[in-house]
Structures are given as structure tokens and as C-alpha cells.
């Protein structure tokens, strides 16, 4: 199967899972289960940055529209992640001359690098998401608890999906 077709199918599956999570899996108002950051880090590394930004914005907007999200919230957070996913990748994975199209799957690198990389990505994502989802109307302590909880829960979720769907040779 061609690489782009396989990637498209995986993206469609992840978006479908995300919509199911949004509409049918409730872990309370503090936790938002989110797979969009995973989709963004698996965008091609050799792709022009502005195209990655537009794709990320589109992915976020699709999730906002198809689920009960506030329109623009996922789109804005996803765009921010798309801006930084490449500059963060190289130092975290310590690969300055990396020439492959996508970030290495877990089996090729190790889970430690993946976990660290995804933690940073999730932190950036939820920084935007929680800030614009009502920081002014929530105490800083509650926002901080929400921030840390979301990173922890979503890291586990994202690693599971990463290992299951993206861990190809």
C-alpha cells in the first residue's frame, strides 16, 4: 500500500476515534481526551511549514465541528503545535541529520524519547486549550490541576494509539 494512502487511512481512523471519545467517553469536565497532537507530530517532516499549519488547523476545526467542542479551540491549539513540532523533534530525538519523512516509530527509537516528545507536545497543546477554555473564569490552581491531569491521561492514551497504529517498520 502506498505510504500516503496508509497515512490517510490511519488519520481517518484516529479522527473517528477522537469523535467517539468526544461524544461517548466522559471522564468528567476536567479531562479532555485528545489525539490531535499525535496526528500533528506524524505530519511529514519534509513538508513546508505553512502547509503543516494549514493541515493542523483543518484537523482541529474538523474535530471542533464534529464534536461538542468550542469552535476554534482545537484548531488554535493544533496550529500552535504544528508550528513547534519540528523544532522540538530534533533536540529531543538527538537526530540532527535525520532524513526520513516521518518521526521514527517507537520500535525504531525508544519509548522514553517518544514519551518525552509527546509530553512536551501535549503540554503546548493544553497550554493553549486550557488558557482559552476559561482561564479567566477559573482559579489558577484548578487550571493547573486540569493542565497536569490532562497531560498525564492523554500521554497514556496517545502512547497506546501511537504504539497500535503508527508503530510500523
Amino acid at each position, binding site marked *: 500500500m502506498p505510504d500516503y494512502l496508509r497515512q490517510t487511512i490511519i488519520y481517518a481512523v484516529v479522527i473517528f476515534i477522537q469523535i467517539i471519545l468526544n461524544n461517548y467517553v*466522559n*471522564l*468528567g*469536565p*476536567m479531562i479532555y481526551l485528545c489525539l490531535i497532537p499525535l496526528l500533528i507530530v506524524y505530519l511529514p517532516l519534509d513538508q*513546508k*511549514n*505553512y502547509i503543516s*499549519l*494549514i493541515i493542523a*488547523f483543518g484537523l*482541529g476545526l474538523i474535530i471542533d*465541528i464534529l464534536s*461538542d467542542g*468550542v*469552535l*476554534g*479551540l482545537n*484548531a*488554535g491549539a493544533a*496550529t*500552535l503545535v504544528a*508550528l513547534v513540532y519540528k523544532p522540538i523533534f530534533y533536540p529531543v530525538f538527538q537526530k540532527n541529520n535525520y532524513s526520513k519523512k516521518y518521526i521514527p516509530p517507537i520500535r525504531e527509537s525508544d519509548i522514553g524519547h517518544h514519551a518525552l516528545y509527546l509530553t512536551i507536545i501535549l503540554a503546548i497543546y493544553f497550554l493553549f486549550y486550557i488558557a*482559552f*477554555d*476559561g482561564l479567566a*473564569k*477559573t482559579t489558577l490552581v*484548578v487550571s493547573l490541576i486540569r493542565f497536569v491531569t490532562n497531560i498525564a491521561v492523554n500521554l497514556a492514551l496517545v502512547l497506546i494509539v501511537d504504539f497500535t497504529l503508527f508503530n510500523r517498520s
Partner: protein
Amino acid sequence: MDYRSNSYNLLLTIGVFIALEVISIVMIVQNSVLQRYIILNGIRSTQVFFWERSEGIRDFFNLRAYNQALLEENAQLRGKMAQLQYLEDYKYVTEETPGLYKWIPASIIKNTPNKQHNYLILNRGAKDGVETEMGVVTHNSIVGVVGAVSDNYCYVISFANKSQRASAMVSGTGDFGLLSWDGTDGSGATLSHVPLSSVAAVGDTVCTSGYSTIYPPDIPIGTITDVDAVSGMYKDMKVALFQDIRSLKYVYIVQRHHQDEIDELSKTAKGKE
């Protein structure tokens, strides 16, 4: 050439990033729940079809709890009836005396209680006399405000929504303040801006004040669990709600009679200030 190309790409990236972020933030700010309802009305009407069926299955397994709640409400209503009968017997109330509020019973088709911006969809719409800005309550909770209405359904901005405030008071002391959801779960709220002179204490009951025309007065909402002085100016009180909004199934949509007249009077008075 490479340098120029790189600079061009960098500028393009920054430009696209700023443009997309501005679009996102404008959407977040401008996207009131009402606008969103209008935009997604088509999608919602299809979703409602499936929600009604899935709720039917869920209702079947929760019948015991619903029956218990209905029994308790019936008991309270019987008490009210006895009071009214007493008043009628003594000619304080006649058959021609209109009630102060119009009550429309409704059931919840869709409830999103686990988000920061929650809403509900009820099975009553314009055909049933529902209008925007009507309050939604139960016998022991405030549920929200009708935000938009279609022919057969209405969209309710839940009280468990960061944008919602309700005027409430402490029974007994009469001190009132603004009640808002605390954003953590379905059973916690905060009564803020209570005067510092208030002697309200933990365990006191909080009920609707009736100062806004949306909710009828004297609906018990919850009990005070903690009292804090804020900046030496006000008191904030944590309130444990009697009814967890997540477990609701049946509600009442209420509208004060002569609401238009009250609104018109307010406008006229403001115009003369």
C-alpha cells in the same frame, strides 16, 4: 537564492501562523453557544434522532431512580396543594387568580454534563410555547436558560456552564449573591458577592432569589459547605447542590407571566435615566 527562499518561507510560515491563530481566537470569542446552535442546527436535528433512541434505552435501566424522584416531587406538590387549598378556603385565592409562572414539563434528550461549556436539548419547542430566555428548573435545582428554540426542541445553556450566573439567596438570612457553577463536577457551585455583614453559616440552605425574572423564587438549590471572606469586601460561599445536573431526566421550563410587560417597563425606565 537559498537565503532569500528560506526568508520567504519563514515569513510565509509566520504570516500563516498568525492568521490561523487570529481566526481561531476570533472563532472562540465570537462563537457564542447560540451562534453555534444556529450553525450546527442541521447536524443537531440528525443527531437528535439517534439521541432520542439511545436515551430511551438508558431510561429503561434508570426507571427505579426516576420513579423515586417523581414520588418525592409528588409529595412536595401535594404539600403545596394543601397550602393553596387552605388559602382558597379563606378566599385569598380565587379560581380566576392566574399563577405567576407558566410551567411546561419537558424531558431531556441530550445532556453534556461533563464539559466546561455544557448544554441540554429538551423535547419541547416553539409549538409548545417555549421561547428563548425562559428558565429551566426542577423542584430542587436550577438547570439553565433556553438559548434557542426550534419547532419541536429547545436548546438550553446549562447552569453547569462557565458563562452562567443566577441570582440566589440564603434562606433565613435573606442575603443574596450570584450563584455560578464551580467547573469541577455537577454538584458544586459558588455563591459570590454576598455582603460581608452576612451571618449565613455552613449548613444554611441556598435558594433562588426571584430577583431575576428567569427563575421563580424560593426553589431550594443546595446547602452552604464553606464561607470565605474575599478581599475584605464580600463573602464567597461554596454550595453543595441538592441535585446533580448530570443525573437529570425531567425538568420544567418556566416563564413569568407578563414578562414582556416587565421588559418593556425596564426599557422605558432606563430610557428616562
